[in-house]
């Protein structure tokens, strides 16, 4: 691309500066996980491994992590299913109100979380009489996660066209076989990208969770929320965040690899 040398330098500079801005506070988080001061006093008066040891021992944290993984997995599965179905319907068929479907799917993420949260909790509580629990958290998260899968699949379907599927049908494959052998493999990376984003959205969600989590259901963000405001526990929270930053690279990297390899489709 024929950009001037200055333009290139400015753009690279902006990228580097932006990444620096993103990572400085994260560095503070990591540093604070070793900070001897319980309330993140700055500059740190000393360094300690106590918080890492405390986090390692904390069964509450491990339970919360497991709850979060369950909630995010459940929400992601539902989102994958609903998002793919909706994307197929919108991309492969024309019908009355097709534009409205897009709007409907975007709505849960476009409306502030507190609105979605109180609307759902009100419905569970007073309208349906469903006791709040892990199930209601999954329902709440799935609602705003559908959109990520939907958009990824929609973009992929648009790029693919229908000719390959038609060829498959012409060669005698029925609807299911075509989906299994032709359509699905081509969509795999889009599903992965959408699913990963859905998982991440659910994993760090706190506002909708606050209103839909039932007795004893403590996702990691809720655990962090509770502990951040407990004087003896705040530094442990930094440990968890620091560990998550490091661990998160694995799923993202894997997904990137698969997406990268699959992008030849």
């Amino acid at each position, binding site marked *: 691309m024929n950009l001037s040398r200055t333009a290139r330098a400015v753009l690279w500079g902006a990228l580097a500066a932006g990444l620096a801005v993103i990572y400085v506070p994260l560095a503070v988080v990591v540093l604070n996980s070793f900070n001897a*001061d*319980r*309330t*993140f*006093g*700055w500059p740190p008066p000393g360094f300690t491994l106590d918080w890492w040891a*405390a986090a390692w*021992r*904390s*069964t*509450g944290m491990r*339970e919360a992590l497991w709850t979060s993984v369950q909630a995010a997995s459940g929400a992601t599965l539902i989102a994958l299913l609903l998002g793919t179905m909706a994307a197929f319907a919108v991309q492969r068929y024309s019908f009355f109100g097709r534009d409205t479907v897009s709007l409907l799917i975007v709505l849960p993420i476009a409306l502030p979380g507190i609105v979605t949260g109180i609307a759902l909790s009100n419905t569970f*509580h007073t309208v349906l009489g469903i*006791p709040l629990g892990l199930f209601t958290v999954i329902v709440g998260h799935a609602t705003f996660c559908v959109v990520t899968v939907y958009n990824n699949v929609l973009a992929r379907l648009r790029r693919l066209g229908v000719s390959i599927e038609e060829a498959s049908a012409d060669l005698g494959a029925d609807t299911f076989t075509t989906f299994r052998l032709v359509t699905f493999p081509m969509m795999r990376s889009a599903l992965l990208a959408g699913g990963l984003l859905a998982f991440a959205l659910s994993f760090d969600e706190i506002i909708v969770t*606050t209103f839909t989590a*039932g*007795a*004893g259901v*403590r996702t990691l963000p809720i655990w962090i*929320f*509770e*502990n*951040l*405001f*407990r*004087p*003896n*526990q*705040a530094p442990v929270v930094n440990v968890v965040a620091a560990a998550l930053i490091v661990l998160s690279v694995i799923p993202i990297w894997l997904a990137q690899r698969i997406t990268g390899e699959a992008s030849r489709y």
Partner: protein
Amino acid sequence: MRSIPRMAAAVAALALAAACGSTETAAPAAPAPGVSGFTPPKIDALASLGAGEGQVNLVAWAGYVEDGSTDPKVDWVTEFESSTGCQVNTKTAGTSDEMVNLMKTGEYDAVSASGDASLRLIAAGDVAPVNTSLIPNYADVFPGLKDKPWNSVGGVSYGVPHGRGANLLMWRTDTVNPAPDSWGVVFDPASPYKGKVTAYDSPIYIADAAVYLMSTKPELGIKNPYALDDTQFQAAVDLLKQQRTIIGEYWSDYTKEIQAFKSGDSVVGTTWQVIANLATAEKAPIEVTLPKEGATGWSDTWMVAAAAKHPNCAYRWLDWIISPKANAQVAEWFGEAPSNSKSCAETADPKHCDTFHATDEDYFSKVYYWTTPIPQCLDGRTDVTCKDYAEWTRAWTEIKG
């Protein structure tokens, strides 16, 4: 983030008047008509203790029911479970209203209700009277906490007291001179500490302004900071609007306030004893006092659900949580004064009870325990309507602007 009276409560003025006056024993037995303002639904207390049901579902404030999952050393649940066979399931509530809502679901057996929730639970018939004769440790609870308007109605006890504390005035000794002994320092619009004053971020903080007005504007005739008529309420709101101009930030959690005082972002404002202790431990140059005007405070109550599915285990829990050892543990972990007089001998820090003034009835006589403001004036007036908590909440929104 608890945006509300996180722990506590109560209809303080009457208790206060009673504690100071000679009617100490008579007052709780015969509350003034306006005080309770309602007749609770007739529900019978448990008559005798049966076998445990194998589990108990609790609604509690964070830090009240610790089973070692937060810190292996902080655990007063495991021993309860092994000695009674009652498995404990806890739901941590963030606010008093969450507690009230959770208790309405009928899924829980007991709740650590603050005074701003306890009366509502009693009025709605969500909790049952408690037969204190089935709770041996009740005998050792400080008399100053028994039969109070926030845990009893018409002389009938609805729960056992858990602990108590006061909202204090904290300041940085290196910047605030001379040492304040009055709330005036946080209300003075010409304060030299402008932009570094902090206040508790909750509608209930309006009561703090009312406490200050009780001594600075006696002509308003405020008897109970939770029973404010139109004029009194307006005066408190005006005072807080004026205070806002010198506020640096409102605080709502420990970490935030300790950090602000350590860094010097805040130099004077309301606090809890536990925050002061932690800030001191972190070498912040701070000092606290109970100002001469008195202060607001809290006192929580463990109550049993009217529809409890595991009442026998719930009673065992009530007895356990006010037993000297467990009560001492929870008081130290949470940072408040224990309710059991024998707990003072059990605390890990031998000075805990002194630090938190556990046995100092004179100290607590200056404390107006948090309670829910209701339209029926809590000070017994029947000729006016008082502002209820919904109006306090709207006013708080307006004060913050």
